[in-house]
């Protein structure tokens, strides 16, 4: 097997820079001076920055837009002038109005806020230097991870601090709901896009031309979130491709020499939205973004949120990535200003690129000791002795490090200190009583129904899970192999073709929940084998993969790590087989699964709270849809789910280890 060579290819990327705390200087010098200091960033090839109005004019006069305007006009019978006017309105609604004064205001206000909220804001300065270089040479696209509202303000704040060109940021329209704040964000470089505009040709044309114009001319780095929305679970979300397609296309069309994609990993020690997210996942709708809501959130200011680590990754050259994968000359026979669906070759390239970038984001996420502790606590919901927790955390630390996790473990601090300070920071989630550590369950006032109690417990489990989720990408591949081995052990088959089948089934099943690059299945399997062998958990004599004596703790930890996902998916399968009614609509699906799970938990038949998460429910459904076990049918305005009970049932059996994978795959056919 070529596993070693394959994995070592990834190794160089894992060489990481050190961090600098940018708040340190803020604590020692005047914020006002800082906000008013001279700001003169270098730009792409020394272009002069473009005024927002000029930018709009370029877009409105572009051939690209004119073509679509005429097309829409012919289709709708409206005069081109009217469509042009519409385009202008769309652009007005969309465009940023970056103003340095607003940026200075934010620089001041955020300095104050950050100092209260966070202990440190750490940035890898080498990454900043690389970025500065990249900005001068090529159009740059910043691709930060998205875990909090803070993300994009934080990004601009950092770039301002380092005297780098301020990005223009694609933001969801929902921000515009906050009247004043929306405009402030606009003036600090945000531009707003509607959440869905599927069929609206004109909107798409204005939007894509706006982004491309900024990119082609290199007026400013473009920033957007590949994940499309904030991850409520702290797992990276599978990437959305729309914007990435737009920013890559100018390269394929030869309009720019190259585009540099810069993955940025923003890791929060404690996320501001922590319990908000858990509630949202449990079906309490997220509060609509409103200014007054934001003000109420001031309460947040009184708490300690630990540190933030922002890691600017190595710029990724689209040109180098596309080398040998996309034949640019296929763009030669079609006018460049006419919008065209990307070719298959391009689509799969963009998809692949998106996944790789998200994986780079994951790789450079900084993990805190608490993340390891949360992983252990979730496998011991009844609580752990503090000493046991400490001991296991140390063990897990070793394991994580040997799997190249980017762990921020305090130097020279005794382990007990590290554990206790982590517990202190997260006292809202875990508490120590009588030498035992267990999850905190918020006690509401007044009498509690069993449902309410369950709900409260679920909030703390999901909050805690959001920390465990941060480490999943490190362990995911070997953990899936561990599960496969576990399943195989029950069916007495351990040679690797069988394991590979099982592994690939899980890989496929979970590819909405985790970042698994399409087509990387073999590589992932080899990586999993390599890692398990490397850490001595398994041996691979010839065709077999055999657990070693010392491998037991590792493998059982891995099994425990993925257990909630296996169980959760099984609950979904069981619901669809046993309870789902004939005309189940897509809308009904989530509440229905939730109440099914609640019933099971209350009846004592299920101990897994994570299945209550709408995220997991959605991902499970997506997987079943992908595997053709469920189909969507549109009837009138409703989307109905048609369940192939046989198929769902056999998937359930495989997940439960009752059926070998090969048969199940056949059954699907």
């Amino acid at each position: 097997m070529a596993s070693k060579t394959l994995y070592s290819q990834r190794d160089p990327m894992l060489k990481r820079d050190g961090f600098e705390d940018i708040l340190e200087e803020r604590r020692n010098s005047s914020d006002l001076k800082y906000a008013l200091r001279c700001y003169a960033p270098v730009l792409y090839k020394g272009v002069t920055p473009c005024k927002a109005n000029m930018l709009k004019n370029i877009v409105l006069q572009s051939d690209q837009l004119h073509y679509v305007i005429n097309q829409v006009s012919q289709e709708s019978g409206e005069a081109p002038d009217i469509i042009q006017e519409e385009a202008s309105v769309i652009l007005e609604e969309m465009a940023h109005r970056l103003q340095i004064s607003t940026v200075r205001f934010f620089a001041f206000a955020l300095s104050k806020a950050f100092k209260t909220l966070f202990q440190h804001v750490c940035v890898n300065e080498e990454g900043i230097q690389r970025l500065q270089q990249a900005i001068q040479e090529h159009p740059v696209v910043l691709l930060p991870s998205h875990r909090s509202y803070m993300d994009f303000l934080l990004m601009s704040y950092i770039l301002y601090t380092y005297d780098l060109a301020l990005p223009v940021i694609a933001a969801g329209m929902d921000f515009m709901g906050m009247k004043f704040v929306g405009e402030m964000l606009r003036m600090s470089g945000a531009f707003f896009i509607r959440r869905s505009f599927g069929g609206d040709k004109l909107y798409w044309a204005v939007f894509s031309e706006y982004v491309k114009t900024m990119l082609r001319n290199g007026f400013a780095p473009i920033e957007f979130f590949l994940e499309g929305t904030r991850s409520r679970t702290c797992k990276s979300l599978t990437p959305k491709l729309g914007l990435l397609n737009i920013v890559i296309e100018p390269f394929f069309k030869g309009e720019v020499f190259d585009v540099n994609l810069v993955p940025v990993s923003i890791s929060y020690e404690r996320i501001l939205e922590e319990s908000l997210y858990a509630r949202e996942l449990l079906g309490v709708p997220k509060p609509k973004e409103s200014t007054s809501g934001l003000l109420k959130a001031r309460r947040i200011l009184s708490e300690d949120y630990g540190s933030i680590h922002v890691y600017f990754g190595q710029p990724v050259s689209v040109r180098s990535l596309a080398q040998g994968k996309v034949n640019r000359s296929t763009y030669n026979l079609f006018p460049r200003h006419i919008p065209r669906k990307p070719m298959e070759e391009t689509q799969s390239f963009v998809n692949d690129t998106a996944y790789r970038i998200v994986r780079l984001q994951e790789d450079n996420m900084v993990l805190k000791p608490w993340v390891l502790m949360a992983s252990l606590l979730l496998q011991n919901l009844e609580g752990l002795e503090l000493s046991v927790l400490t001991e296991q955390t140390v063990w897990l630390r070793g394991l994580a490090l040997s799997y190249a996790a980017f762990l921020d473990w305090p130097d020279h601090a005794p382990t007990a200190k590290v554990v206790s300070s982590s517990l202190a920071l997260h006292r809202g989630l875990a508490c120590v009583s009588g030498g035992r550590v267990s999850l905190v369950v918020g006690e509401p006032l007044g009498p509690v129904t069993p449902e309410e109690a369950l709900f409260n417990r679920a909030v703390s489990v999901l909050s805690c899970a959001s920390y465990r989720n941060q480490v999943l990408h490190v362990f995911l591949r070997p953990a899936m192999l561990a599960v496969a081995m576990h399943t195989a052990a029950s069916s007495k088959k351990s040679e690797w073709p069988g394991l590979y089948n099982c592994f690939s089934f899980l890989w496929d099943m979970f590819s909405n929940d985790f970042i698994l690059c399409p087509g990387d299945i073999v590589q992932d399997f080899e990586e999993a084998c390599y890692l398990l062998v490397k850490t001595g958990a398994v041996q691979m004599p010839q065709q077999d993969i055999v657990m070693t004596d010392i491998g037991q703790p590792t493998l059982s930890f891995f099994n425990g790590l993925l257990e909630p996902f296996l169980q959760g998916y099984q609950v979904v399968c069981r619901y669809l087989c046993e309870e789902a009614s004939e005309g189940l609509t897509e809308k009904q699906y989530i509440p229905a699964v939730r109440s099914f799970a609640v019933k099971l938990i209350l009846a004592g038949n299920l101990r897994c709270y994570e299945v209550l998460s709408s995220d997991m429910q959605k991902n499970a459904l997506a997987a079943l849809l992908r595997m053709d076990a469920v189909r969507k049918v549109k009837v009138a305005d409703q989307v109905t789910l048609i369940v192939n009970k046989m198929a769902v049932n056999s998937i359930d059996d495989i997940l439960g280890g009752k059926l070998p994978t090969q048969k199940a795959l056949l059954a699907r056919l």
Partner: protein
Amino acid sequence: PLRPGLGVTGASHTVNTLRKSHDLLLLTLTKLTNCFLFSPRQEIMKWNGWGYSDSKFLFNKKGQAEFTGKRYRLSGMTLPSLQDWFENTFGASVKHKSPATVILNASVVPPPRLNEAFVENLKATGIPFSNEAEDRLFRAHGHCLHEIFALREGKKFERVPDMVVWPNCHNDVVKIVELACKHNVCLIPYGGGTSVTSALECPPEETRCIVSLDTSQMNRILWLDENNLVAHVEAGIIGQDLERLLNESGYCTGHEPDSMEFSSLGGWVATRASGMKKNVYGNIEDLVIHIKAVTPRGVIEKSCQGPRTSTGPDIHHFILGSEGTLGVVTEVTMKIRPIPEYQKYGSVVFPNFEAGVACLREVAKQRCAPASIRLMDNTQFHFGHALKPQVSSIFTHFLEGLKKFYITKLKGFDPHQLVVATLLFEGDHERVLQHEKEVYDIAATFGGLAAGEDNGQRGYLLTFVIAYLRDLGMDYCVVAESFETSVPWDRVLDLCQNVKERIIRECKERGVQFQPLTSCRVTQTYDSGACIYFYFAFNYRGLADPVHTYEQVEHAAREEILANGGSLSHHHGVGKLRKEWMKDSISNVGVGMLKSVKEYVDPGNIFGNRNLL
């Protein structure tokens, strides 16, 4: 004793004298050689560089550049700013010389593999031939960088023609081709030898006897038809001779490729050449009325001289661009025009390349392009300026200063951004002036300022001396080459920029120690696009194998061109240098069509130079 004293403009004065002594010589010479007599050009040209032996650039002892000889406008002049430009641009130094081997060493030429039967039969025809090493080597190459570099270094050639034949007319060619087929001998037609596509390189794997078929003796104008304005010309004639001879009768073809001093009519047809003044006269395919060519299958020609026909696919287009793979072009009937009454150069300065391209695009749109219109980028503008001869009068000096002040200070042009378009107008006096105004008016709308005739003329000068300048560069560790493409208008800017950037990046990656020179100009305009011409040069000090590095970079540059919507070639051709991209360029079916034509016309691969396919 027969060495001709040649006139300034070249060879053909002496051709008739030579021909008279032809028969006599054949009787007296028993050796297999007779050769140089039939190729006087070879005598006055460099064997390891470009052009005439008497014309070359050098840095004299005073540290000033000069151009020797008497043939060109620059000849005999000193160029005070060239050395500075040269040293600054390339990081080169006149102290670091890399001189060429002076004397041709016959040992670099492998011994000939002769086909005795063929030689016997050929002798019987009385067609002159030679197997002298010098003659064979002279016809074993074109002017690609690697070819000239090898000659200068005195490197051994793996494969060269085994003999050279000089047919005197169409019938001689018919005989030679018949004999070649009979004895399975490989023929490589040779015209002016100015190929830059490795087209003349002998395939190293060729085991048969390779015969270079030199058309230089077929250089007559056979007749001239003033009623229909066509001339019937033998294909071996060299561009400048054709033009001069026609001028004597008051006509011209107007076909002026940059290589016209040395390239031949047959070569133009075989490579689909393009002339600088194509806007008035057309490219070679527009100029040709009739082609006669000898193939192994027989002679191909048409039955009439109708100006246009609808008789299936135009068979001329099998020959045009065939690059010597199907046969030898022997006679061509081509359009002629009365010599224009008036000619005027001109130039326009633009604030930047973008503005210049926009102007050329508009000129093309309005279809009012002058005979020639070219746009040089900023680098080439400075290059051109480095070739300014010593200014003799203080007054001219003052005027120059004033012009510069006007453009850069009053008009605010950035000297590191501005570009210049060079123009050539032709026609009757009135019309030229009118046309000139029209073009300058368009230019003005793009911020262009008229910059005088002199600048224009100097621009065209650069194209004629550029190859001489390459030799100078090679004397000082600088390698250089040019390449070209054609591209739709909307991609012109992007292509230029991306190709330059690609070159710079590739040079860096391949360990070139000094910033390369990358420069381009738009040399031809068409309704739907333009021809772009690139210069690329770098100082190779510190590189183990500069030619290989050069080739890798050029290869990358060509890939970049293709990825940016440029063609494989606008007029240089494919040769062997760009064969690998043919399939992608014309599709598998296209390649198949060409192959099947080759298969029918030349099943024995007699014309075995292996160009194109």
